[in-house]
């Protein structure tokens, strides 16, 4: 039991989310073990973003359970419903890193201040610890030399890598990436994917929404295909990307014609 809890970072049980009458997530079950890299694919509107946003309660789920490191989020009321006070949500979010399509750096702060903001205001780290983390994680994304630059002075790819460092500085248990490269010019996509790949290799637990199928193929331990709010198909990258069972998955993959497999011997 002990080992099971130690290795399971995140567990979604019967996760549901609707906006008004629109059911966007329909009974999602997912167990994420430590160090696992999961890529989530699916057509636009299939609920990928909503799924990630439910994990850190940027959207409050309409039903189901979210369990992070064996602990269910929120406080249980007497009637079994749950309340989510600001403190426990802040706590949860400090342990779940998120990177957005639009990098959303704080433009009035330098690169270093951006990275130190979370440790300082949320974790209440002292100055030395904030500085240590800023240096460590900016170096990790290869931008230690830009510590004193303003976000506006960086390229899109560099800004996104700072956003990754800002999330890493919280030393989270799991990282969520929502189309982290979709807003980038094609020539800047590679450096961000490279950073993400490096994190995966270092054993970071990650949930990644992306349309970069080549990246999914090389980096993912598991690929999920989401359709109309359900996990339609999941498995190893070879299984889902090369030999999909479901018609919807095949259609989706056909629509991404530019996908080239890294190994030429397959197909």
């Amino acid at each position, binding site marked *: 039991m002990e080992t099971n809890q130690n290795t399971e970072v995140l567990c979604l049980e019967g996760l549901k989310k609707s906006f008004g009458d629109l059911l966007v997530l329909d009974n999602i079950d997912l167990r994420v073990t430590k160090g696992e890299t999961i890529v989530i694919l699916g057509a636009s509107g299939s609920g990928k973003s909503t799924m990630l946003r439910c994990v850190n309660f940027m959207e409050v789920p309409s039903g189901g359970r979210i369990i992070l490191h064996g602990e269910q989020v929120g406080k249980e009321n007497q009637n079994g419903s749950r309340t989510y006070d600001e403190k426990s949500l802040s706590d949860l979010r400090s342990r779940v890193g998120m990177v957005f399509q639009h990098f959303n750096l704080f*433009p*009035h702060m*330098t690169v270093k201040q951006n990275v130190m903001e*979370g440790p300082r205001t949320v974790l209440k780290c002292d100055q030395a610890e904030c500085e240590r983390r800023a240096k460590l994680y900016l170096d990790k994304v290869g931008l230690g030399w830009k510590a004193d630059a303003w976000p*506006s002075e960086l390229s*899109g790819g560099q800004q996104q890598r700072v*956003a990754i460092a*800002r*999330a890493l500085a919280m030393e989270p248990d799991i990282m969520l990436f929502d189309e982290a490269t979709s807003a980038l010019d094609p020539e800047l996509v590679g450096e961000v994917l490279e950073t993400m790949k490096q994190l995966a290799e270092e054993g970071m637990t990650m949930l990644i929404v992306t349309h970069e199928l080549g990246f999914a193929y090389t980096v993912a331990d598991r690929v999920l295909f989401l359709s109309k709010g359900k996990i339609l198909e999941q498995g190893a990258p070879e299984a889902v990307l090369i030999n999909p069972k479901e018609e919807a998955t095949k259609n989706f993959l056909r629509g991404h014609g530019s996908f080239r497999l890294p190994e030429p011997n397959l197909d």
Partner: protein
Amino acid sequence: MGYEWDFSVVFGNFDLLLLGLVNTLKVTGLALFFGIPLGLVLALMRLYGNKALRWPAGFIIEFLRSTPPIAQLFWFFFALPILLGVEIDPFSASVLTFSLQSSAFFAEVFRGGIQSIDNGQWEAAKAIGMTRNATLQRIILPQAVKRMIPAFLERAIELMKTTTLVSTISYSDLLYQANTIAQSSYRTLEVYTTAAAMYFVVILACSLLVGRLEHRLGRSGEITRG
């Protein structure tokens, strides 16, 4: 038939005009000092308060914006003392009126500034676990205030011009002093020209100063893409 300009009256009474200018600046300065924080409070109540806060804040703002400032001034100077049973001197009535009056306008400036900040900033702060208050203080307001500087300046200038109303309740601001000197000396043209020039110089100086401040702030950090 050329008019014979004679500024000797102005020179002879320049200390009185200066005193008037100082009084104008005193009322304006205090109204800004109280009005800006009060405006921020009203804006936050209106934006983030529950119904019990939002509704009164909205009412106060709209009421103050939709009544003539001179009516407000008369109310605080002539009517409020009847309610309270104590005299209110012209200076206090002026500061009270213009603090409240400008707070309504500043509330709207704050609200516009806060709402102009991209929602992604809120999301990014939330995602690292920042609370709403921390996000407002450290992420939203610093950016919003920077954008609001031109609107602030415009309101402050408007405020200084509106404070000339205090001469109607015999508070000795610049306009009141000019009236007094003009009436006793009959040098109306010279006196009012000088008074107008003094307003102009002060307001121009403020504009230039704020412009430089804005330029300095503008260099630190721009708006990020996306």
